[in-house]
């Protein structure tokens, strides 16, 4: 087992990894930017090194400084958390080349799955359903028209290098197709320097369901059931829950097994998430694999009792998984609300600043994963999440009640948070009845343009 691990991240996920290390008797090394000197991850780690100035590009994204910190700290392994360098196959490679285990999949698996076309092909090979679409890039307009007819309208045009909605267009009819295609190409070229696009069937208001999988280097692949992350605003997840409140039991087993096939087929080790969209008839389609631990991993931990970060560390150290598929039981229902320093009244404008006073919710069924404290200043340089409020109760109804209670008792004075917005979502009939999809928040809460 590792003696010492460096955490190449900040905020709550840095704390999460430090906590796992401490419980395993592993020394932890934090890195931090000058803006994070008062951060809890710096205080709680066994050692901490400043790696640069506030902006991520000058600190948390600087390979050389992070590797140098790993050398100075004399660590065995590096945990990348999520965001920053977590899905950077090159950094992954550099870590290993420099003699540090990277706690995540191999650079090869990361790279393959990071490319959407390759990932899609792998899904098809492994009998994992994908959204009907073009096999690879669209060569020219006439092929596009043909393929779109096969797929059936509406069709979605997507940039192969894309992300965040850039280079994405919907064509409702054949008349829209050619103009939409050229817009998408131009946007993709401008944004990513790669104008390659592909087509697929447009699924208007899907649910987002993802399956947590973990694989060791001994050929064991185990899923830890699914999460529903359909409460999103502009593709940003706001609320996640496990298990899915709306997937029929037989579909649930199918989607989990598909995810295991995908991970096994990719020769993937460590924790990964297989993302799907689910249409109104409960058909599911593979979207992508997130080759890292995810923000919302705690809901899975709550229903399974499995510590995912410790499992990541064990697997990276070459140990076999300490559980088999049949050991994983799903007990109760868990919900996570991402508490962001944003003003929901002002279009979710970031609200960084000093937290003058804080009351952390507690009591039965409540978990709060956060790096903030009363007197802490939320810096403006990083993402606005200040904590994850997680509840676990025997039923979804009880979990919602506990979450609303916990949101209500949380006090974060000095900055504005999204807690009040979450409370509105949690009492909306669509959410309560689990009839919501990924367009729910826009439809129900955001001002229509």
């Amino acid at each position, binding site marked *: 087992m590792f003696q010492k691990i460096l955490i190449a991240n900040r905020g709550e996920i840095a704390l999460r990894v430090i906590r796992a290390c401490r419980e395993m008797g592993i020394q932890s090394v934090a890195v931090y930017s000058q803006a994070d*000197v*008062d951060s809890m991850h710096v205080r709680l780690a066994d050692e901490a090194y400043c*790696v640069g*100035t506030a902006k991520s590009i000058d600190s948390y994204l600087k390979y*050389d400084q992070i590797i*140098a*910190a790993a050398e100075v700290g004399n660590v065995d392994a590096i945990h990348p958390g999520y965001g920053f360098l977590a899905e950077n196959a090159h950094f992954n490679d550099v870590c290993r080349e420099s003699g540090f285990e990277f706690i995540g999949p191999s650079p090869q698996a990361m790279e393959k799955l990071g490319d959407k076309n390759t990932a899609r092909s792998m899904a098809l090979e492994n009998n994992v359903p994908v959204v009907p679409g073009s096999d690879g890039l669209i060569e020219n307009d006439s092929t596009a028209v043909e393929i779109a007819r096969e797929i059936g309208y509406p069709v979605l045009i997507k940039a192969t290098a894309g992300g965040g909605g850039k280079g994405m267009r919907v064509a409702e009819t054949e008349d829209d197709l050619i103009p939409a295609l050229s817009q998408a190409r131009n946007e993709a070229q401008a944004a990513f320097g790669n104008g390659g696009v592909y087509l697929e069937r447009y699924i208007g208001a899907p649910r987002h369901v993802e399956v947590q999988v973990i694989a060791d280097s001994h050929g064991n692949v185990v899923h830890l059931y699914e999460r529903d992350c359909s409460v999103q605003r502009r593709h940003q997840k706001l609320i996640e829950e496990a298990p899915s409140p709306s997937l029929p039991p037989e579909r649930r087993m199918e989607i989990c097994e598909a995810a295991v096939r995908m991970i096994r087929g990719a020769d993937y080790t460590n924790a990964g998430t297989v993302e799907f969209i689910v249409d109104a008839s409960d058909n599911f389609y593979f979207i992508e694999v997130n080759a890292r631990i995810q923000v919302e991993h705690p809901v899975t931990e709550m229903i399974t009792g499995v510590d995912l970060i410790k499992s990541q560390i064990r697997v990276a150290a070459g140990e076999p998984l300490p559980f088999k598929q049949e050991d994983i039981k799903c007990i109760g229902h868990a919900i996570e609300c991402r508490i962001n320093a944003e003003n929901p009244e002002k279009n979710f404008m970031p609200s*960084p600043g000093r937290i003058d006073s804080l009351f952390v919710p507690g009591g039965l069924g409540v978990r709060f994963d956060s790096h903030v404290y009363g007197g802490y200043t939320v810096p403006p*340089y990083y993402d606005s999440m200040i904590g994850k409020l997680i509840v676990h109760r025997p039923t979804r109804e009880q979990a919602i009640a506990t979450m609303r209670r916990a949101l209500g008792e949380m006090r974060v004075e000095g900055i504005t948070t999204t807690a009040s917005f979450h409370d509105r979502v949690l009492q909306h009939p669509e959410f309560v009845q689990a009839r919501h999809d990924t367009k729910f928040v826009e439809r129900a809460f955001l001002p229509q343009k």
Partner: protein
Amino acid sequence: MSKGGKPDSSVFDVERIREIVQLMEQHDLVEVDLQEGDDKIKLNRGATTAAFAAPQQLPPQVPAAQSPPPPTTAESDVEGTVTINCPMIGTFYLKPNPKAEPFVQVGSVINPNTVVCIVEAMKVFNEIPAECSGTIIEVLVDDQQPVDFGKPLFRVKVNA
């Protein structure tokens, strides 16, 4: 002091805008929105955040939210002196090799190009230039100790 009040000056008068901006900065204004007939001046300061970043966190010698790599030297809290700060994480070496003399010691007179130490990181021995002129008055780190970004290495009495 203010000349910006002249009613006849254009809304495009940069001098006046500068004054308003200074006011905004001094008094932590987020927004100024002025209108007179069709004339309008509206100024928004991006983040209320500039105010937040500064206070407790940063070591006083390093300016707050500087994004280009900061100067190696920074003003010190001791008057008339600056510190030479470490520009990277690594291991600090006072000497080019174990048997050699230190690059500098207390009393050494330095100019901006004087190599004051080596910081080793990833098997690379980086020579660190002083980037200031003056006299070394204190060596702040022991030889072969780990140092990280921004760590003060030497105190320098600057040339008047």
